[in-house]
């Protein structure tokens, strides 16, 4: 990928993310489903639209367009120098470094977890425990999905995630079972099954692939993270609808207790109940759960408007 393409993808990602965030705030869109669609739209611009503009509209890459027609031409900032280096070049270097740092921050633990998981596969393991299996079957029926198989791992760490893109398997550690009693366990299982019902594991891996493809793009990294956060919120809401919000928040709190976070395990590049949970995160998710439900708004019309608006806007950003 050429330097111009990389610059455009970063610039378009930043503008798209800012524009969509402003729209979500202005339109007061709190529904997780709608927010995911809007973030996906923003993500499409650096991933798909920016390369399309470059390939199909070479006119935009000319000096004439940058000098006369562009609403914003980043190259103009190279005329301003800091320590002998153009500001555009400096900012570009900083953004690429930030993108790589954001990517590695999430990718390295994922690789480490995958390695640990393979190593631990040789450890003690009991499959398809009857009690948990019945709970999973009951909740799967409520969510209208096929119940995934259950694997219980003999581990002290609180491990709780769904593995598999198409054939799912719920992986739970003894430590989780020891710390979550009936209603809390039901809420936690409902959360993970809600991910299965919405095909979040597949979406999570696709997002990770997008992040890998644009590992240097900080906007893509942040947008993908925002989508994952909304997926978590959506799963929390689904679990709360099947159980009770206070059970979900209590399950989150128990699994995030400092003594519990002995290791981070993940079967997919999504935050599961047991990973990436700090106090602020838990409070935010609990507050979102206990807040009045966001009103569903006419998303398709707004999404179309946002897409067309962004397309026109970014045509003039080079």
């Amino acid at each position, binding site marked *: 990928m050429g330097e111009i393409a990389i610059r455009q993808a970063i610039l378009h990602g930043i503008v798209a993310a800012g524009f969509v965030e402003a729209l979500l705030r202005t339109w007061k869109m709190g529904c997780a489903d709608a927010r995911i669609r809007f973030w996906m739209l923003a993500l499409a611009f650096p991933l798909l639209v920016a390369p399309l503009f470059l390939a199909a509209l070479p006119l935009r890459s000319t000096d004439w367009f940058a000098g006369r027609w562009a609403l914003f031409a980043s190259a*103009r900032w190279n*005329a301003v120098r800091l320590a002998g280096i153009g500001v555009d070049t400096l900012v570009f270097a900083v953004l690429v470094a930030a993108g790589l740092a954001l990517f590695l921050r999430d990718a390295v633990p994922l690789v480490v977890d995958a390695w640990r998981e393979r190593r631990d596969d040789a450890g003690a393991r009991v499959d398809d425990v009857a009690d948990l299996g019945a709970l999973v079957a009951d909740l799967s029926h409520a969510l209208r999905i096929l119940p995934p198989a259950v694997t219980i791992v003999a581990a002290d760490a609180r491990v709780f995630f769904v593995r598999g893109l198409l054939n799912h398997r719920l992986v739970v550690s003894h430590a989780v079972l020891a710390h979550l009693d009936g209603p809390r366990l039901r809420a936690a299982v409902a959360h993970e099954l809600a991910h299965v019902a919405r095909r979040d594991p597949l979406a999570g891996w696709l997002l990770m692939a997008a992040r890998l493809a644009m590992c240097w793009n900080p906007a893509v990294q942040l947008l993908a993270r925002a989508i994952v956060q909304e997926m978590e919120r959506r799963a929390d809401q689904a679990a709360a609808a099947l159980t009770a919000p206070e059970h979900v928040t209590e399950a989150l709190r128990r699994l995030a207790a400092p003594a519990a976070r002995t290791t981070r395990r993940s079967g997919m590049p999504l935050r599961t109940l047991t990973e990436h949970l700090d106090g602020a995160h838990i409070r935010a998710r609990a507050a979102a759960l206990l807040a009045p439900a966001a009103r569903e708004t006419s998303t398709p019309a707004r999404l179309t408007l946002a897409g067309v608006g962004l397309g026109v*806007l970014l045509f003039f950003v080079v």
Partner: protein
Amino acid sequence: MLMRFLAVSLGTVALLAALNLLPTCLGGEPRGVIRYPSLEAVEARYRVRLWAPAGRLAGEVRLSVGEPGWLAFALNGLAGGTLAPPVVCQTLAPATADVTPDVQVPETLVPGGELLQAREWTAADRRAQLRRVLLADGTLVHELWWREGGRHVMLRIHGDADRLVRLFNEIVRQVP
């Protein structure tokens, strides 16, 4: 819904436009002027041969976009005392018209002034025009205008016109 969308859109447009204008306020280039690090960079991008005395480029090349597209660059090694360095300007695209007093370099590249005198001048088989121009700040400059490879070329020098001829000879020696 639509009003809020328009508000966000206009806000974004205003922000981007302000960021686009800020470099000019911070001592950068006016809108419509692009900087290139070297003559080679311009030649590679536009696939043209630029006329310049060998090894005398000082600083960057500034390009004013549009038709025919003028570019300007300063030369070192020829400034006398505190005088500003000579400047070479030339079009990127072939110019259809001969050099007349109407032909001007955009003021975004070099400051304009009052034409005091223009006379024809011939050297190295080229018909050129020698101009004396009084700039707005009271500086007197000499300019030599001619066509090279179908494109307009202008040399501007502060002070003595003799150095203009020397520079002209250096440039035309580069023409194959």
